[in-house]
């Protein structure tokens, strides 16, 4: 329980102690981190202000754009302070800084969540595997933890090293959060710099978490051909006992599978179905592809109500707070396993397994807290076996036959709709059901987030969400799709292959569809976006709920995109990295391009690498359904690294974007590293975080945000071809900023040559003086100073 002391170890203190340094190195091992695998870069373990200058460079070009979600501040007892339109709170803060502060708090919560997830995993795995368990991602991955190397300057070798990295993250998060206290930071720019710091830390924590589980649980180590598994509401074989895992931290799920194997119950699906929901589902299938994925967060309440699950095991994150009461309604016992999500349940950690199983099967307790994961696994399995025959899949969804009757109470007051996060016309749908028409309800199924907020608002207590699900009965029964198991990191060999075409623009971009399912108009949009870019042979990486939503769509050939496209990190590849924490591998790939392909020094060299990524790696993230604080910090972490992110219209409620202005030439002027000249390179990438109003806008913006100053002529031509094609497809003419991206005639897409030449004439375009430069924002990278 007590960790033995971290020792601030100094060579000095060893001198004269009679112990030679070599002995200590061997004995203790952590010193291995200090090994000279590369000279130490300028910013090991950066503190809050270490990268402030880099942040300010970004923030000068990509200015914070605030959309207050509330004009008040209620953070201290001086308040509430009305900050509308520049008024000052009692502490002196204004509305801009307040937005920065709220974003900082969100990022701190997001980063803390991944860090604590990582901490839990690492501590647990050290207990199971020992702190000297090696970090080995296979022979195709030499740069095993690019983010860790980049930020900390450490080349981690063991699980123990990961714990050490987390200490740094923890220290920094606490310090950064402190800036949010009343009467601390005052400038919105400094709040943003701190949010960027938190975002960076978040990526580090995610990398630690995912690598820890990969190396110990033997997840695919960057396998391009990771197996296919299943996703959907319709896949559980309900004749068997069914265990459903909800959350993000797979270690409890692993214990379930291990217990089954050890006790002759076979692999998942053989005698017991093991299902996952939310990111833990990805990681279950990474552990054993016979586990199955129910779906994204939107499926949580509806699957519980279907009654299919005999036991529910919660870990952490993305747990709907109603799971406990929902599970009770269908007599499904609940096992909570995380100290971060105890849900008021009695702590049975120290009780014998049999006693807990009895209590759950008998219904003495509807749920328990078990913080010993091995025990939780055993209890889950034994309870499922014993309760399944008794429960008989009791469900709390109305039968389709009853829909009309239930709907009859509706007064069409509209409260349901007016509280639905995405304004779904539930009132009309329920009212139509009253009149016997269930189509409108069924239609909503694909859009509904499954949050049940409508139900809690309905003055007539109509179970609106259930009506939607029951009306879509048929859809659900057949909801069964293929998804590729999360493959984890990108191989160094892949990077070597695609590094050059990406940097020079011949692979027109790397697009990442990530994050949650708060989609404005259903998950289909994400799949359609992904398909558009897959067809165009972009590299498409995916993770989390987005990876699941993309699976739940069939192309014209009736296949899922995972079946149609390869899992390789290559043109036209659809790369499911895995759960949310696996997002680190997407950032990691960008970093590895700079390091492996371009040989930029990696160690503690954040600015240079980020500068490289911003100017050369045509990557763009799309978090179409971003909802949570984690998504805020992930996006912000991508931003500090120079990767732009597009969010859906709901994302406007994050309150802050980073927007460039293409007409501001000065802001898009960089150094040419070869000469030191200041050169305008066009607005590429134009924004760092952007809200798109529609799927169409997001698609066009994605293509554009893959442009980079460093594109070769051929690369630029290819990228512009996609941009122009997509712009014309959706906007029906040439983009009006096209001239800002055409440096010489050679950049012009051949297919549109005539048209574009005409346009260029019209706007008075002239070929650029310096068409291709070695672009950088960092003065110190100028090689020949004038």
């Amino acid at each position: 329980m007590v960790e033995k002391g971290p020792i601030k170890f100094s060579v000095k203190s060893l001198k004269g102690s009679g112990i030679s340094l070599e002995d200590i190195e061997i004995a203790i091992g952590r010193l291995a981190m200090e090994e000279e695998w590369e000279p130490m870069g300028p910013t090991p373990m950066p503190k809050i202000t270490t990268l402030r200058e880099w942040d300010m460079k970004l923030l000068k070009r990509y200015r914070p754009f605030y959309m207050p979600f509330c004009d008040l501040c209620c953070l201290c007892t001086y308040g509430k302070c009305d900050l509308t339109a520049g008024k000052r709170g009692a502490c002196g803060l204004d509305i801009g800084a307040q937005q920065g502060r709220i974003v900082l708090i969100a990022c701190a919560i997001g980063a803390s969540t991944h860090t604590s997830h990582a901490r839990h995993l690492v501590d647990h795995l050290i207990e199971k595997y020992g702190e000297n368990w090696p970090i080995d991602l296979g022979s195709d991955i030499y740069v095993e933890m690019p983010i860790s190397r980049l930020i900390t300057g450490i080349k981690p070798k063991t699980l123990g090293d990961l714990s050490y990295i987390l200490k740094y993250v923890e220290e920094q998060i606490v310090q950064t959060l402190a800036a949010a206290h009343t009467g601390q930071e005052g400038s919105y720019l400094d709040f943003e710099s701190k949010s960027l710091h938190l975002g960076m830390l978040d990526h580090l924590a995610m990398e630690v978490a995912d690598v820890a589980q990969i190396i110990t649980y033997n997840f695919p180590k960057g396998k391009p051909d990771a197996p296919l598994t299943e996703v959907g509401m319709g896949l559980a074989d309900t004749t068997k006992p069914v265990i459903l895992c909800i959350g993000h931290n797979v270690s409890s799920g692993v214990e379930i599978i291990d217990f089954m194997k050890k006790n002759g119950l076979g692999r998942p699906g053989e005698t017991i179905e093991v299902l996952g929901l939310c990111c833990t589902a990805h990681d279950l299938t990474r552990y054993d592809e016979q586990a199955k994925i129910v779906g994204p967060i939107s499926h949580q309440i509806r699957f519980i109500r279907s009654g299919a699950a005999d036991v529910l095991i919660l870990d952490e994150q993305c747990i709907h707070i109603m799971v406990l009461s929902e599970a009770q309604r269908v007599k499904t016992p609940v096992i909570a396993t995380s100290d971060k999500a105890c849900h008021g349940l009695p702590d049975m950690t120290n009780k014998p397994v049999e006693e807990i199983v009895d209590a759950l099967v008998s219904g003495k307790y509807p749920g328990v807290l078990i913080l010993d994961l091995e025990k939780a696994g055993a209890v889950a399995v034994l309870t499922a076996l014993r309760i399944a025959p008794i429960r008989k899949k009791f469900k709390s969804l109305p039968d389709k036959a009853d829909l009309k009757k239930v709907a009859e109470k509706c007064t069409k007051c509209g409260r349901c709709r007016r509280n639905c996060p995405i304004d779904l016309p539930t009132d009309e749908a329920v009212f139509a059901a009253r009149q016997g028409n269930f189509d409108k309800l069924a239609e909503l199924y694909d859009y509904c987030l499954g949050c049940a907020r409508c139900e809690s608002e309905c003055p007539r207590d109509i179970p609106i969400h259930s009506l939607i699900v029951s009306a879509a009965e048929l859809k659900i029964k057949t909801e069964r799709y293929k998804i590729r198991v999360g493959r984890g990191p990108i191989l160094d060999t892949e990077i070597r292959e695609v590094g050059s075409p990406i940097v020079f623009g011949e692979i027109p971009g790397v697009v990442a569809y990530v994050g949650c399912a708060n989609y404005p108009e259903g998950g289909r949009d994400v799949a359609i976006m992904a398909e558009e870019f897959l067809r165009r042979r972009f590299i498409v990486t995916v993770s989390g709920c987005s990876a699941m939503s993309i699976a739940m769509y069939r192309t014209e050939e009736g296949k899922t995109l995972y079946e149609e496209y390869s899992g390789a990190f290559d043109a036209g590849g659809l790369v499911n990295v895995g759960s949310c924490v696996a997002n680190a591998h997407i950032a990691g790939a960008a970093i590895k391009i700079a390091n492996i392909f371009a040989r930029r020094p990696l160690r503690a060299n954040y600015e240079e690498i980020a500068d490289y990524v911003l100017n050369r790696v045509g990557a763009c993230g799309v978090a179409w359904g971003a909802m949570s604080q984690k998504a805020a910090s992930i996006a912000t972490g991508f931003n500090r690294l120079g990767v732009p992110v597009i969010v859906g219209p709901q994302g406007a409620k994050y309150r802050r974007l980073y927007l460039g202005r293409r007409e501001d030439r000065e802001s898009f002027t960089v150094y040419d590293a070869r000469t030191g000249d200041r050169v305008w390179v066009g607005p590429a990438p134009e924004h760092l975080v952007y809200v798109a109003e529609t799927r169409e806008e997001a698609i066009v913006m994605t293509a554009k945000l893959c442009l980079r100053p460093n594109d070769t002529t051929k690369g630029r031509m290819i990228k512009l071809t996609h941009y122009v094609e997509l712009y014309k497809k959706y906007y029906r003419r040439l983009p009006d900023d096209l001239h800002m991206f055409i440096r010489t005639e050679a950049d012009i897409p051949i297919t549109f040559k005539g048209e574009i030449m005409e346009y260029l004439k019209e706007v008075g375009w002239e070929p650029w003086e310096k068409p291709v430069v070695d672009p950088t924002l960092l003065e110190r990278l100028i090689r020949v100073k004038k």
Partner: protein
Amino acid sequence: MSITPWQLGNVPGPKTALKLTGEVAGKLLKKAKNPLIIVGAEALKVKVGEKLLLDYVIEIAEVAKIPIVATSSTLSAFLERGVEPALSMGAIEITDRLRDPEWSLDGSKPHDIVVYVGITYQLQSQLLSCLKNFAPQIRTLSLDRYYHPNATWSFQNLSEKDWIENLNILMKTLKEEKKKD
């Protein structure tokens, strides 16, 4: 009872939009020194009686001689109708420019009144909040059917019928006042 935001939870603070009527809207637009209309993608889905909202807005803009900014892919719909918007830009991007007190479409005098219409409710709400807080010199109008507390003026939540009526009055007012000129 006071006006409630369309999304009931969307209570932003002490400053909320004044109630707009068709007549007031007409007068405001008529008096505006440099107005602007920003048209979002919902205008392609929503009907005003038999007409698409988009077509209705085109009429308004023509009668009142107000330049249009087409957001997202609405541009194509305008072009199909032979209408050339003054600008095609993301809803976010145009709002970003409007924060800047110097900025205007033609670089002459800044915009004093900006109309938002047809942008999905929660995004529009946030855009209006941006201008409310960071561009107090601009007065914003929402012509959508739903009350937008973050605008300077907004229709309250209206039935389709009442909304159309108000839009018609707006149009009538614009034309009438025109005559008076």
